[in-house]
Every structure is written in C-alpha cells, then in structure tokens.
C-alpha cells in the first residue's frame, strides 16, 4: 500500500526529488533522497519497525523528532539508529531488531 500524498490543496511533494532505493527487512522500498528513513518506511505501508526484547511488542513511530526511540532500527549493521531523524541513502539496508 502506498501512503504517499498525491494531491494536496497547498503543498507539492513529488516535484524534482531524486528517487533512491533501500531495503527494509529484505524488501525493496523506494524513497526520496534525503527524507527520513521512517518516512520512506511508512510510505511503503510498513507500520511495525521493531519488536521489544521482553514482551515482543510491535513498535513504530511515535514522536518523529528523535526523542522517544520508538522507531530505532539497525541500519547498515549499526544498531539502534533513529530512523525518524536519519536521512535515507541509496542502497541502505534497514532491519528490525529485538531491542
């Protein structure tokens, strides 16, 4: 499911932005260069970013401002990266973690 906003009374989103590709848990996801990883993931209709260690609870995005650590994932092997404030780069490998 594509959650990108296509029509808006005031804003335009698609103009002139370069497209890149990242993989999220093995799945190819298209993104716009420079947008936060979390935006690309949500746009692709993916809602579960990780699961917690003790209760296996699904977690997604909560504050989107880099403060709550809900959205952390492993990016290119580095764990606990805040996907809401980290921009995508072409070829990035993003994975869920149990933390």
């Amino acid at each position, binding site marked *: 499911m594509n959650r990108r906003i296509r029509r808006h009374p005031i804003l335009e989103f698609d103009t002139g932005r370069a497209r890149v590709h990242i993989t999220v848990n093995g799945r190819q996801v298209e993104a716009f260069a420079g947008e936060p990883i979390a*935006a690309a993931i949500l746009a692709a209709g993916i809602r579960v970013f990780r699961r917690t260690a003790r209760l296996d609870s699904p977690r997604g995005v909560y504050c989107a401002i880099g403060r709550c650590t809900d959205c952390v994932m492993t990016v290119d092997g580095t764990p606990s990266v805040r996907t809401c404030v980290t921009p995508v780069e072409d070829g990035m490998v993003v994975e869920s973690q149990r933390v």
Partner: protein
Amino acid sequence: MRPETETELAVVGAGPAGLCAAIEAARRGVRTTLVDENPRPGGQLFKQIHKFFGSHRHGAGVRGFRIGEELLAEIERSDVRVLLDTVVFGFHDDNTLGLYRGGTVLPLRARRTVLATGALEKPLTFRGWTLPGVMGAGAVQTMINLHGVLPGARVLMVGSGNVGLIVAYQLIQAGATVVAVVEALPAVSGWHVHAAKIRRLGVPVLLSHTVLEARGGDSVEQAVIAPIDGRCRIDGRGERRLDVDLVCIAVGLRPLSELAELARCRLGFVAPLGGFLPLHDETMKSSRPEVYVAGDLAGIEEASTAMEEGKLAGLSAARSLGKLSRREYARLAEEIMDNLAELRLGSFGEERRRCKDEILLRYRSLNAAEASAGGR
C-alpha cells in the same frame, strides 16, 4: 579566539527563537555560532502550513513555513556560523558546551549561550498506546506536511487544543478521514475558529470524552472511547468503538529543559506553560548569568512569541558582551516587550501572561534567597 572551539555566543536550537537570537546578536557584531541537531534549521516552522494569526508585524496571514524561509535567508546573509547535525550533549561549569557531530566530539567554549531547545509532545498512556499507529500530533504533522506521507487513513484525534484542531484539519487536507476529536474537558481547548472549520467538514468534536484503548494485532485497527465526568471517572455505558488506524495524541507540549538543567539553570514547574522550565528574568536571562533562554523552552507559547523572545535574548546577550549601549538596548528591549505584551492579550494570552509574570517573581525570589545565603 579559535573559531572552531570558541565563540562569543552559542545559540542552541535553530527554531524560530534560536534563529532570531542569532540574527539579532550577529547584527550587533557578536561572533555567533548556531547549533542544531537536525539536518535543516527552522525547528517546527516548516510543518506549519497554516496561516499565522496576530498583527501584520508578527506575520499574520503568512504561513509558518514562509516565515521560516525568510529567517533562513537572513541567517545565510549574516555572519552566523551554523552547525547542523550537531548535538549539544553537555554544558560544563567552565562554559564549555560538548558537541557531537559526524562521529566526533568537540568542545565549544562560549562566553554567552542562548538555549532555545524548544519542546516535546507529552504522551498519553492508555491500553495499547505503544501500538504502531498511535502517534503524537506533531509527528503526524511532520509526516504529512514535510514528507508527504499519510501515516493512517482513518484518524481519532485526542485533544482539542490548537494543535489537535489544526492537525485534524491538515489531515483532512492530506486526504485522511478524521472520525472524531475527543476532548477530556467540557469545552474546546483551542480557538473556536479552528474547531468550527473541522465541524463544518463533518468531524464530530466529542467533549468530556477520552480514549480508553487502542486495539489491533500489530498496529491500530480500532480505538475505544468513552465519556468522562468532571472528576475523570469513566462512564462505561457510553463506551464506543471507532474504526480507525491512527490515534493522534495532542495533549500538550513540555519544554525540553534537559540541557538547561545540565547547565545548572534553576527550573520551576509552571503547569500552564508545559511543566518544568528554566526560570528567567525579563531580559530572558536564566539563573546562570551567562545563559539566556527563549522560545518554547521558556514556556510553551507560539512561534510569534518565540521569535520575539529570541530577539530579546540575542540582544541581552549582545548587551552583556558590551556590543550595544544601555540606551540603545533599553529602546529595543522595550519595543520587544511591548510586542510580547500584545501577543499575550485576549482570553488565551491572558493565562500565558500571568504565568510569565509568575516566572519573573520566582526568578527574583531565587536571587533573594541566594543573596541572603551569602551568594553563590
């Protein structure tokens, strides 16, 4: 003075308050370094796609992001050194700020500092609040207005303050359906003009209601709401289930006061302004003489007051560094204080004005207590 590790004025936070502080100080010849942890300056201005209210002087009728663009243009024209993607993790006794940028750690020694670190949304805890699909209103606003992504198609908005009402409207503009707005109080918290706008679009605003639960497998599929009485007791008979995939929490902001606290500024709890905040005087000086505060950090208000407070903090810092005369400072400061007074009129502004006065009182009694204890 080595530019890499020393500066006359460090401004932490490049939102409206910080930008204005830096611009103002730089205009007076203060060597200024502006630091922000985000890749772009502007704070929350850029997701404000609605038109601001207030007088023309304060940018009334202009959308938030345009004001942001103007400020950025001014910063670019100025001498301010801007460090983005840079976290300030420490504020040590010798006025050294600890900076973390690009994997390296740097000290920044500043003779004066303006803290304009802004605010954070308050969470609301209820059964299922950690499910994907429960998000802060600001988070939703960022996603829809800045990134063009709709995090959900059917929304329950919790909170009818201005943020809740405005984001509900913006969700509709972005193509979502707002199934309801719930408000715990018996009256709408925000401006009626905003409430009227969404009511006209068919969105029910349910007063004296709260959210009880967010339900779903791996993400929100349903929300349970119920009426509450004046003592927050839930009326189980009135429980309703709503078919939603996004529960948006708009229950207020709190100042991001951690750095101020690390800097050993004395904090005070002022509930209507968001909670713990650094006490300050009318020149925006905190209890630590080299540190000034401005914007939402100094109490949750608006972008317009943030900009004025930022200007004032920048001027006060410049004055304390000897960059402008007492007369010139007095003239400019008075103008700003008049602007602030004007922005704090009306039924909503009244409460904020009262709280800001309270902060001044508490600041003064801090000094009195310390003076009688023999000073610091």
